[in-house]
């Protein structure tokens, strides 16, 4: 078996082969498969919203709309990408991935209905120790830590990295909410914050803040 890119495909299990055959076929069998798949996507979306903390505040019609939008968009994506399914997993696992990612994306957009846009730009540095999960240390020590990180942020990061670091770390804006707000993708935001963490650490070590204290703690 060869996929649409000309690559050897993995062997399909029977259930996955049935799904593919029905969805790429015609007539009543295809219609039945479409209805069944949509029902499964709705069920996964419902459970996923129920499972997630971010979905806790969503109920009633708003919840139903989000569930059906996620299932509908996932359905479109699945049908558009059927030719890329190579049988490396069960068909349903491959399909469910689309609806799980749609739920994440829609929850990211929904975040801004409950939080003002100014939330993105606020900078309350006193929250930093708490956000790091640090214990209740002395105010003077926390102030020194905050001062060192602020200096690293100002001197080592690009403006883009600084903005995303502040939003994600200080303001606890979820990554998917930032993605929705900035019109980018999750990987781009994650990579910017990943690079920011690495650069801040490098700055703190180079300036003797971190390494000496870290060694002292072990």
């Amino acid at each position, binding site marked *: 078996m060869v996929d649409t890119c000309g690559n050897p495909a993995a062997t399909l299990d029977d259930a996955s082969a049935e799904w593919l055959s029905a969805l790429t076929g015609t007539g009543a069998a295809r219609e039945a498969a479409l209805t069944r798949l949509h029902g499964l996507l709705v069920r996964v979306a419902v*459970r996923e919203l129920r499972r997630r903390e971010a979905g806790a505040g969503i109920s009633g019609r708003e919840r139903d709309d989000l569930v059906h939008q996620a299932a509908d968009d996932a359905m479109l994506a699945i049908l558009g990408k059927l030719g890329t399914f190579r049988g*490396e997993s069960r068909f349903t*696992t491959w399909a469910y991935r689309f609806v*799980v990612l749609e739920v994440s994306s829609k929850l990211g957009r929904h975040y801004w209905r409950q939080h003002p846009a100014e939330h993105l730009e606020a900078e309350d540095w006193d929250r930093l120790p708490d956000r*790091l999960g*640090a*214990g*209740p*240390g002395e105010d003077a020590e926390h102030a020194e830590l905050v001062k060192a990180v602020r200096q690293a942020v100002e001197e080592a990061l690009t403006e883009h990295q600084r903005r995303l670091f502040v939003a994600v770390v200080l303001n606890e804006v979820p990554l998917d909410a930032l993605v929705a707000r900035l019109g980018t993708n999750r990987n781009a935001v994650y990579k910017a914050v990943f690079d920011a963490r690495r650069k801040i650490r490098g700055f703190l070590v180079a300036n003797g803040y971190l390494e000496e204290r870290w060694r002292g703690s072990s």
Partner: protein
Amino acid sequence: MAGIVVSSWAALERFLRTDPADVGCEQAMEILHVYVDLVAADPDAARRYPGVAAHLAACGPCCEDFRGLLAAVTEDR
């Protein structure tokens, strides 16, 4: 008191630590279905994809998607 003070810096160090094996969101999500099927069958299978495991350990949103997809396929079986 010194212990408490050190813990703040230790927490900072832990937060800033990055794993060079981390493949990032794009690659991890690209093969999430394959990874989830393997883990659903055998939890130790995660070792076959150390870069994905490193990413899921560091990225909250991708880990949430992993948990969601794993829950969906587990409930199906």
